[in-house]
């Protein structure tokens, strides 16, 4: 561990030999295509499938009515709501699934899909979540008992005590910050091949899934198929970012079609379908307020949020936390009192909410706190770095219990900040800014000192649909000293085939090259909750270490037997046990492995393997300081990122090269979110930004060069002190970008600009302030 071992999985990818779901080709396979609603809210008067069915090569056209007969028109979501698989009665968002055409090939399916005739009657549309709770607002969900658009109210902290502090506060600063709806858009869209075999009675589903076991269980519950007769295989996944956690109607339709037809059915969505109907991210309308004294000592935090969930509550949230881990919004700071409340509402938009590397709403929280702290700094006329340093939770206070109930494991916020300030040359930059301001030029420096919360999660607090959020590892060592390990997580590019092998190498001394890692096949891998929310290293990584240590314990006994000594006389160094004081009397792990099959102590169970299901005792809290420097083109409003430095602390690192790659990727996503991405709806509920024409992904030209650095504050409760890091760059960077732009304009009275900060938004501000070129 700690070495930048090159990745084993690369070999197949660089040769074009990856095995993604659309690469799966089974004999007799047919193709499905979804027919979608053009309207955001409409009654379905009738659906006529005759013309479609008559197209040669069409095998079936399934509607909601057909599914209803098998009680499958609706399915449960991962948040205890239900969602229509195929619409019955009415459609609730543009692009909603209305019918499923199955044909011999994709081309025929596309032709037939056009011929499905649906008679719609448009209904009034609700797109503004702020109006969702007005009397007279269109009712999105007629199926619920509660006849309004309110999904949940959730609160944490002490409302009254917090209010008291605000009453007597010397200074109050607040911000209304919108985190726009955006979409993770992994380069591979979602899809599956559902293969029900009439010969074996088993259903195999090749699935773009970040959580194959959870999906298997849900399919069993939804489809009424015995779970032992379902096999979910997540082969290579072309990026997940949370997009591949929910169960989508296309999957269920493909399964139903395969069960009905007895042949494999492939369904792969197009990019437009992906953007318009699969799990979006964010859409949080937030307000934060800080109470502080005149010297900048923050006393209390108050947060109120309206969450737009779309037509179904299809977020994947731990049961107790309908707003996820949003209450990490106290961030890196001490607040004597805090209060946070979130209300979720339905609108006529696509369902989702938890995605795009957000660790269960942590991106929203981190953005909010880092924005409002900057607003306070402006109010106090204090340097934003200085304000933060003044209020950081000091290192010696960890484990730290926040006023919103989280126990932060460890942190050294000052260390990361100071390193960042030093490396970026902060003082010189402030001087440069002052000089530029005299000349009327606009330059900004934005800081984000985020703390995030990952590794869900301990069983006393965390479950999804009741299933606790442990994770697992099973290791088997072969007679010749090589090993195979399987986990309940599922990599979508994070490099698990390499990093997990490095853990085993560290713990057992078997070279990483000798350890094969497998994930994703529910027939063979131990049960786990999958990979998202940066949870793999904290959960399965831990399980891997613990399982390896179980093997090491047994290996010690075998070594003692082989060396004819007492276990207590033995010492371990990676790869071998040796007698204390007599290092030449040793046995390598390879010797021991062989002995486990050929020469083991009488009475001992043969073999050398172990499994561990790891229930983490707590979450982990990676953190960091990001600093962004921008220059504004006063003629066009374009913002140029001159420099971006990310100092991350994720505790002990398995593979620095892989961590750095994650940071680059996440920062690029944060850049896109801050400056160019939004899925918006017009007042009729028509989606704007429903294809790559208008939903913008940065190319190599827009993406700046990222500078990275690190500090290391190990996690005290993790077997090897690691915290996980995949989501940190997307969590911490949007605030850094926005803070930088606002900082460039703050001397003109600008306090806040909502994302995406497009050139025209900046231009508008420049015009208003009279500083356009």
């Amino acid at each position, binding site marked *: 561990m700690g070495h930048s071992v090159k990745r084993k999985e*690369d070999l197949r*990818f*660089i040769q074009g030999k990856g095995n993604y779901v659309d690469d799966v080709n089974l004999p007799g396979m047919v193709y499905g295509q979804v027919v979608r609603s053009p309207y955001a809210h409409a009654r379905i008067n009738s659906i006529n499938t005759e013309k479609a069915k008559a197209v040669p090569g069409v095998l079936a056209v399934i509607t909601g009515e057909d599914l209803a007969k098998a009680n499958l028109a609706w399915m449960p979501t991962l948040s205890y709501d239900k969602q229509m698989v195929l619409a019955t009665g009415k459609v609730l968002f543009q692009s909603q699934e209305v019918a499923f055409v199955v044909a011999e090939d994709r081309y025929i399916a596309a032709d037939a899909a056009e011929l499905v005739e649906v008679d719609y009657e448009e209904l009034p549309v609700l797109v503004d979540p702020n109006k969702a709770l007005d009397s007279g607002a269109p009712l999105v969900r007629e199926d619920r008992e509660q006849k309004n658009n309110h999904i949940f109210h959730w609160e944490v902290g002490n409302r009254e005590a917090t209010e008291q502090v605000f009453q007597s506060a010397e200074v109050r600063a607040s911000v209304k910050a919108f985190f726009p709806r955006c979409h993770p858009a992994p380069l591979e869209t979602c899809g599956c091949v559902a293969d029900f075999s009439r010969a074996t009675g088993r259903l195999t589903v090749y699935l773009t899934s970040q959580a194959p076991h959870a999906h298997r269980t849900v399919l069993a519950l939804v489809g009424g198929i015995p779970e032992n007769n379902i096999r979910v295989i997540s082969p290579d996944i072309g990026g997940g970012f949370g997009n591949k956690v929910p169960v989508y109607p296309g999957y269920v339709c493909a399964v139903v079609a395969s069960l009905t037809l007895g042949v494999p059915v492939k369904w792969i969505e197009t990019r437009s379908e992906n953007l318009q109907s699969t799990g979006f991210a964010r859409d949080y309308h937030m307000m934060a307020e800080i109470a502080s004294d005149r010297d900048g000592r923050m006393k209390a935090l108050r947060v109120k949020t309206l969450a737009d969930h779309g037509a179904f509550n299809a977020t994947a949230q731990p049961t107790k936390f309908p707003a996820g881990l949003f209450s990490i919004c106290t961030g890196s700071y001490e607040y004597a009192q805090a209060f946070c409340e979130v209300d979720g509402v339905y609108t006529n938009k696509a369902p989702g909410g938890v995605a795009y590397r957000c660790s269960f709403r942590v991106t929203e929280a981190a953005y909010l706190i880092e924005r409002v702290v900057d607003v306070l700094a402006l109010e106090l006329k204090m340097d934003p770095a200085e304000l933060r340093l003044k209020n950081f939770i000091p290192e010696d206070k960890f484990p730290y219990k926040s006023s919103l109930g989280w126990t932060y494991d460890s942190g050294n916020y000052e260390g990361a900040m100071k390193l960042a300030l030093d490396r970026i040359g902060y003082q010189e930059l402030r001087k440069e800014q002052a000089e530029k301001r005299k000349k009327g030029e606009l330059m900004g420096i934005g800081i984000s000192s985020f703390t995030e919360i990952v590794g869900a999660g301990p069983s006393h607090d965390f479950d999804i649909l009741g299933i606790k959020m442990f994770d697992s590892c099973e290791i088997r060592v072969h007679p010749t000293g090589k090993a195979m390990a399987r986990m309940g997580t599922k990599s979508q*590019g994070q490099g698990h085939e390499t990093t997990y092998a490095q853990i085993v190498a560290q713990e057992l001394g078997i070279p990483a090259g000798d350890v094969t890692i497998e994930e994703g096949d529910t027939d063979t891998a131990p049960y786990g909750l999958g990979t998202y929310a940066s949870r793999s290293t904290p959960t399965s990584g831990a399980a891997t270490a613990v399982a390896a240590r179980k093997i090491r314990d047994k290996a010690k006994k075998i070594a003692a037997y082989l060396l004819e000594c007492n276990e207590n006389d033995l010492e371990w160094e990676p790869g071998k046990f040796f007698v204390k004081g007599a290092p030449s009397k040793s046995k390598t792990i390879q010797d021991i492995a062989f002995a486990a099959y050929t020469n083991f102590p009488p009475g001992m169970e043969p073999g050398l393997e172990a499994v561990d299901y790891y229930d983490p005792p707590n979450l982990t809290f990676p953190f960091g300081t990001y600093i962004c420097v921008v220059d504004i083109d006063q003629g066009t409003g374009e913002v140029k990122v001159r420099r971006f430095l990310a100092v991350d602390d994720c505790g002990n690192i398995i593979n620095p090269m892989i961590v750095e*790659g994650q940071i680059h990727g996440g920062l690029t*996503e944060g850049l896109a979110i801050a400056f160019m991405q939004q899925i918006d709806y017009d007042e009729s509920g028509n989606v704007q930004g429903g294809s790559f024409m208008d939903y913008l992904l940065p190319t190599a030209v827009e993406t700046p060069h990222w500078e990275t650095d690190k500090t290391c504050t190990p996690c005290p409760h993790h077997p090897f002190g690691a915290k996980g890091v995949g989501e940190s760059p997307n969590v911490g960077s949007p605030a850094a970008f926005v803070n930088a732009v606002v900082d460039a304009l703050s001397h003109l009275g600008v306090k806040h600009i909502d994302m995406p900060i497009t050139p025209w938004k900046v231009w508008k501000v420049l015009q208003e302030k009279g500083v356009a070129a």
Partner: protein
Amino acid sequence: MAKKQLITVKVNGREREAAVEARLLLVHFIRESLQLTGTHIGCDTSHCGACTVVLNGKTVKSCTMFAVQADGGEILTVEGLASSAGQLHALQEGFKQEHGLQCGFCTPGMLMSSYALLHSNPNPSEEEIRWGISGNLCRCTGYQNIVSAVQHAAAKMAKAGSEANLAEGVAK
């Protein structure tokens, strides 16, 4: 049955023949008729470049062409980069050494665009590399290590080129 026409295309050095509908997209021809699934589909508006292949010496987005247009032509896909003996191309080596991929989905397209770039510009600057791959989207890497991978390959190819010249010179 839909009307089909016969086309012949040389793919990775091999003559391939198939009867295809006129509307069959080149990417589907490659992935399904030829079963070369290294070329990927990432969008439906010709933006992402995951489908990039080299046709008659130039990179094209195979999702924005019909297979019939390639009739009589020559295609190179990612599967044709390594030598027939399995020796990886310098670019493939570069991507591995420099961690220029994570999920691998954009990688074949990136390799083909880089291949064409280095062919016309053997010693590109960072800026030129970024422009050269501006038709290929990546969500995982932030492009930085892809740039390093291409630079790695350029250096390797230049070295091999000069070594070959040297060897040639010695042989003479």
